[in-house]
């Protein structure tokens, strides 16, 4: 359990890092990763690390189907962000930039390994910490990331059978 003083330190550090990450971004937004509209390579690696943890228990178990589902989740996340207003896109870009620099990942998210190497336990601990944070900014970051991932998966018809959703009805003749 962090003390109040530690929490405050984290808050100040996050603010400074956010400002720094924003500045880094202003030096030139990296190009989208191949095949994506919005996420750059670093953002993609973060989303790819979060997806299996956020969606644990809801993804297919067979490795090929699971890999395909995860790739589709990343692509749907990418499409969803590109449809948000420019101001909100910018906020998410800053959030991913903060998590993408080593200092941000380590100090604010508490994840020691790089995103590509982070264990599910490390990622899960990060999400729990932000979910319960006393800082609205971090709780908002948690909700943005988890909700975008959840929406990316449950918009996909491959997720529906497990939850007992038959999909939209066919439009034949109007029922009597």
């Amino acid at each position: 359990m962090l003390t109040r003083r530690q929490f405050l330190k984290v808050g100040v550090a996050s603010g400074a890092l956010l400002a720094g990450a924003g500045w880094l971004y202003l030096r030139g937004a990296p190009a989208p990763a191949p095949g994506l509209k919005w996420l750059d390579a670093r953002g993609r690696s973060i989303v790819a690390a979060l997806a299996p943890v956020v969606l644990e228990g809801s993804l297919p178990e067979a490795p090929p189907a699971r890999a395909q589902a995860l790739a589709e989740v990343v692509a749907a996340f990418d499409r969803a962000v590109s449809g948000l207003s420019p101001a909100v896109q910018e906020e998410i870009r800053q959030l991913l930039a903060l998590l993408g620099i080593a200092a941000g990942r380590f100090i604010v998210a508490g994840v020691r390994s790089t995103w590509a190497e982070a264990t599910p336990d490390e990622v899960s601990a990060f999400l729990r910490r932000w979910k319960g944070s006393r800082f609205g900014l971090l709780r908002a970051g948690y909700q943005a990331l988890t909700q975008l991932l959840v929406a990316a998966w449950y918009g996909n018809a491959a997720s529906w059978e497990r939850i007992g959703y038959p999909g939209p009805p066919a439009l034949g003749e109007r029922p009597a």
Partner: protein
Amino acid sequence: MISDPIREGIAAGWKAIDAAALERDLDIEVDVVVAGSGAGGGVTAEILAQAGLAVAIVEEGPLKSSSDFRMLEREAYPQLYQESAGRQTKDKAITVLQGRSVGGSTTVNWTSSFRTPPGTLAHWRSAHGLARADEGSLAPWFARMEERLSISPWPVPPNENNDLLRRGCEKLGIPAAAIRRNVKGCWNLGYCGLGCPTNAKQSMLVTTLPAALAKGAVLVHRARLERLVVSGDRLVAAEARGIAASGSPPSAHRIHLTARHFVLAAGAIGSPAILLRSGLPDPHGLAGRRTFLHPTVVSAAVMPQPVRGFEGAPQTIYSDHFLDSVPVDGPVGYKLEAPPLHPILAGITLPGFGRSHAGLMKEFANLQVVIALLRDGFHPGSPGGRVQLRADGSPELDYPLGEFLWEGIRRAYLTMAEIQFAAGAKSVLPMHEDAAPARDWAQAKAAIADLPMAALRARVVSAHVMGGCPMGPDPRQALVDERGRHHHLANLSVHDGSVFPTSIGANPQLSIYAHAARMASDLAGELAPVSPRAAGRS
């Protein structure tokens, strides 16, 4: 084969211009420019066009119609909602569902139709000085719009999600009743929120807008109204630009609209934003203030039997007991309803992540969901939010949830859980990050009493944005008069939910329709050279 009245109308020669596809600047000269094509804009456009006035309707969203409505959330949210159904208040604590296509929120709403409650009108008379806010003089306007939009009792039995709300209330002796709907030949599919694929919902898209277009009105869609141009005490023009999608930058080509009169009906975030961007006279700083949301909290129950909340008309049963049993300006009251359930909407509303979230989603077909809509704006503890502009000119709503509302939210969680257990729930979970499923009412009661009431812990949503350009006789408290006319500019009106001085305390579409019809009829009488009736007689 379901016919598509919009595509047929376009083929028959309606004037619909896709501003995002323009290859040069465009000048439009009409009698009246209407900004927005939702509940206020649609009604206004029809009445003005039928009075023989030349009307241009400017809509930021795209023109989508029944052939496009495929009942898929992943398509509907980006196409038909502001910010892909992810619009949020400034601190991200409230998610605001608001339409963004031709027809505005009426294209995607859940068809609930209520007249403005008498208690709300009485409060508007006593606290806000509105002389015309009385049931008697509004009744003909409600009746007119009810007839126009086929608003009538829904004769089909409620789906299980709604019937469980009814049964739970009945067990506890809480009055509940059926909701009237604006539908004609409804198939009872349950996908109203994703655009009606059968054109049964009598939204603006299939009623007033086609009527206005048939009378020669011009619809400019995918066009963002950037600002109104003022000269002296009059507006002389409106400037718009094409915009392909909400995430896109505006196009290079401008649309310059000149008119005798301008009507704002861009919704309670959009209309104040246009006023603020245009720097129009506002000596008392009212534009965008006192914006209300009916902040809404959610409770999910797992039932032993299938509920299948994705099937059948949503929101067909309601209870006003917790509005009617408290004074309108006392502790906050709330309305109870039962929404539709779709996978994305349920997924982003259920708290947690990983295995616990997956476990809740596995119960999707057995989930019963109740929502409580809080009646904000009637008490000093509920001053509403404020629409502000970001650096890029886009609007942002700052809506802090204060102690007054948190107290009501806790009561609402208790009410919903008690009703759900009375209806036979196996477990009940308030949509709150710190909540765990409760196995019985006693456990729920204790757990809810301990839940921390804080932003971004409780899930709070809104589908009803109201206020921000309040009407009233006193220019120190109101931006427009009761006819919707701006207090400081001779040829500007506001005809949408932003004119309400408080929230409505009921789903607002019918309130907007009736008030807009009354305002637009006044305006038509003033602007139209010869009334069509007189012309017909001559």
